[in-house]
């Protein structure tokens, strides 16, 4: 792409006023990036795009900070334009807007990103959410950037007075973008790694799982063998839930049941033995119900043969429980091959 075309575009755009200018700009960028579907975008093009963005979309060249209203308007039209474009070209644009590799630019645009995702959740824009899910994984779910973003979203969704997306039909979100929901929950499991998340989140997750039981296995567009799931996190949450302090046991029960079913269909390697060991050690005076749930989860994992790690350690964990019928059965049943099949 030549600088000529670039400057032509800029000239064209300078003639226009807001909001048309922004819409037009995004449209142009989409057209440009459509040429690079399925491949990586050359640096030069990225450069040009960012120039356009800076000047005409995000108005970053101006000294003044954007007013709140202006910001919302921009976000709104970004949503609108993403709603109409195709998946692949959207992704390219998204990554140009919020480049994982350009730290400076990313930092600058983080607020925008955060609010954009929030708005996309409210408006249920599936393209943006799918891009976001993918973006999280590219950046790395456990990274500070991701976690901060997710934290912000959590606050936004659960604590703010107005949470329109949750006040009605929360389940719809999981139908709009299962990838986003799965990724979101996975990130949350890292934020609340050894403690329980807000009850509202658990309830939301329970509802989502009722809609889509195998949410955790939603494939992201490109196969990502390193993609994390929320399964280990969910295991932790369930086992750590103290039934005595629960006011409403049904949520946990629902989640536990869903979890068992999920584990039974789990692919190899989804849980590590170390997770179980750590969890076991973190339990202090577990109640009968907690033990029951833990052992059931272990049995399911053994049956599905999805645990990675040393079998002896797992055995040690099981033996570590006070003897119950269930525990004995599990030990007896898995005495031979299953434990040894752990790779």
């Amino acid at each position, binding site marked *: 792409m030549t600088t000529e075309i670039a400057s032509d575009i800029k000239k064209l755009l300078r003639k226009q006023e807001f909001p048309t200018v922004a819409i037009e700009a995004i449209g142009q960028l989409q057209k440009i990036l459509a040429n690079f579907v399925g491949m990586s975008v050359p640096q030069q093009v990225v450069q040009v795009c960012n120039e356009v963005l800076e000047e005409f979309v995000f108005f970053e060249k101006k000294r003044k900070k954007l007013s709140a209203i202006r910001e919302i308007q921009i976000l709104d039209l970004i949503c609108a334009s993403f709603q109409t474009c195709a998946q692949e070209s959207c992704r390219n644009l998204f990554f140009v807007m919020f480049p994982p590799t350009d730290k400076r630019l990313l930092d600058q645009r983080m607020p925008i990103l955060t609010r954009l995702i929030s708005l996309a959740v409210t408006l249920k824009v599936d393209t943006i959410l799918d891009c976001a899910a993918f973006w999280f994984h590219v950046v790395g779910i456990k990274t500070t950037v991701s976690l901060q973003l997710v934290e912000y979203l959590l606050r936004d969704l659960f604590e703010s007075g107005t949470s329109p997306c949750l006040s009605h039909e929360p389940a719809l979100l999981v139908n709009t973008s299962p990838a986003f929901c799965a990724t979101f929950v996975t990130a949350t499991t890292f934020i609340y790694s050894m403690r329980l998340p807000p009850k509202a989140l658990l309830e939301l997750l329970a509802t989502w799982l009722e809609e889509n039981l195998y949410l955790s296995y939603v494939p992201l567009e490109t196969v990502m063998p390193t993609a994390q799931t929320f399964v280990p996190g969910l295991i932790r949450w369930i086992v750590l839930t103290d039934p005595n302090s629960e006011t409403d046991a049904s949520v946990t*029960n629902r989640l536990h049941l869903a979890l068992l*079913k999920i584990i039974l269909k789990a692919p190899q390697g989804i849980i590590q033995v170390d997770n179980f060991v750590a969890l076991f050690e973190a339990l202090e005076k577990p109640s009968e119900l907690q033990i029951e749930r833990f052992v059931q989860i272990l049995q399911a994992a053994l049956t599905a043969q999805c645990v990675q790690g040393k079998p002896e350690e797992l055995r040690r964990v099981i033996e570590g429980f006070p003897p119950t019928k269930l525990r004995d059965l599990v030990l007896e049943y898995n005495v031979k091959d299953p434990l040894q099949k752990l790779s």
Partner: protein
Amino acid sequence: MCDDPFRAEAWLITAKTLFPNSFAIQFAMYDMYKGTHRSSDAARELANLMSTFPSEQGLASEMKSIAGAIQDSTTVIDSSRQLVAIFKHMTPAVQYDLLLSVCDNAIDITERCRFLLLVMRRFPESTAKLGPPLIEELLSNQNESQIPVSIHRKLLVCDVLPLILPRLQLPAKLVVELLEHSLVFYVRYMSSSDKYLDLPMEPKELWDRLFNLTRLIAQKLDWNLADLLETTNISDSQLSRLKSFGVPRSSIGIVDLSKSRVVADDEIQRFYITLVLFLRSVHFYGRFTSVMDDLPGCVLTDFRETHPQVPKKKKIDRGSNQLSASKHLSGNIAFSLINHFQTAVKTWSLLINYKEDFDRLSETVGLPEWPFSKIFFIDSKIYHGQHDEAIRMQCNLMVTAKTGLHERLTANVRLASCFFATGDRQNALARVLEVITDLPETAPESGESTGGSTLSSARNFCARVPESNQLCFILCSRVEILRFCVRLIMLCLKDRIADQRDDSAMGHLIVLCQSEWPTYETQFHQLIENIRKVKAFSYPLFMTYIVLPDILEEFAYLATQPSLELENSRLQLDLLPPAPGLGARSRTVTRGVNRGAKEDLRLAMEKQMARSEEDVDQIIVSFLLNEGKLILGK
């Protein structure tokens, strides 16, 4: 185990992983889904169970419950509806397997048959595979049991065949065999005391079913005469289509089911169609002529005379066979009775050509056990004018069969008809007098002439004097039987006075003329004319039996008026009974001389008038009973 359904399910899932081969655990999961109305989960579990534990008893009984629930689609029982919901969530392939499994586990052929029918109704494409073996099995069970209306035959004929026949092409020989089974079943069923709740009770509906089935079979066998099954009254042109040409080939009959070559033959279809038409017509003939709730039964009477003077006279041709039925019968019944009788007679004349086959089937179907079958044969002889044969058969029947009052009455009526038709007056009269002794009681319905003045009701009867040449089914009611007797006796007596003067015969006639007055008024006036001509009339029974005012007045007139032709003589009327103690010569005679005698007669007439309110029919009956010998005469 625990209240929370999620916890319970978690346990069951875990248990299933620990004991993957345990039927009990997986069935418990199915049960749990069923109990919580999660039909699609239950269906999935059940499908798993079916493939993993195909021979478990618990599973078999659950599947049977489901099949049972589906059969009764209108159930309101909650548990059944739940089962139906589960079934609906299964894929068709699994549904089919389930039902087939239930069939295999059925305890007996009856149950298996019911479930197989269910399968074939839901999965029509399976008919070809499941139908023929089912038919074979039912047939072999039937052949073993030999009960005419066994459940096997019932299932075969009423349920299986109507479903399967339209869909499959079965070998022709088998289809003919099935036709025979159907015939036997329906016909036997109508006269049996065993009842099946899902079959109709009315004979008409049962016959309709049989005819529908026969039509279906005829269609399958490409019989071109099948349209004749639509008629109830077979016309002559239709009859000619049924006529067979030539004599059957083998001595066993045309339908030899042991031979494989059977059904391309036209003979076969003629036989069966004729047979079926015959049986139905005879059946309805029997129903309408038998004693039922509101019908006293009918009997065929024949007033046609063959003339012995013309020995070469042909058999009465059909044109003059004016068959009618009593007007006391409702229009529908009368019409049906006549139709069916004629059809039966015509088809019977064709069936004679298939003697062996007919004999075999009529035996199987139980025709000889029908009380009216023998009577039909007699009636058909009467219809064809073969009275001698009819007489012989009827006398035979009276000797061999049971004779209650009704049978005796009708037998004698028939015999009287036949004797009369052959010209044997004496025997006819003798039989009529027998009839009178068995006369039924007066029925409480209107239309009977009861006592008093018969003028008004008599006028209604005017139109009912049958034509002189007629075959008629009359009701076995007092009125009609009596009318028949009176008419027959009068015809005989008329003969007697034709050639010679016979006062007692004339007197008898006058007594009888009172019946249903003024029906016979004309006859009466003719008799009066005769008396006038002869100028004398002696009838000692006059006062005993003649009560009608019109007649009495006529006689009074005769007695008093001078004859116009012979001024000097008066009519001699000798009507008073012999006075006790006096000799014959002292009988008063109304010659002008003995004025006392004339006065006596006048007084006697006046006195007789007082009797005008009496029941004429009763008088006639007593007359016939008491004076029977006289009537029989020389």
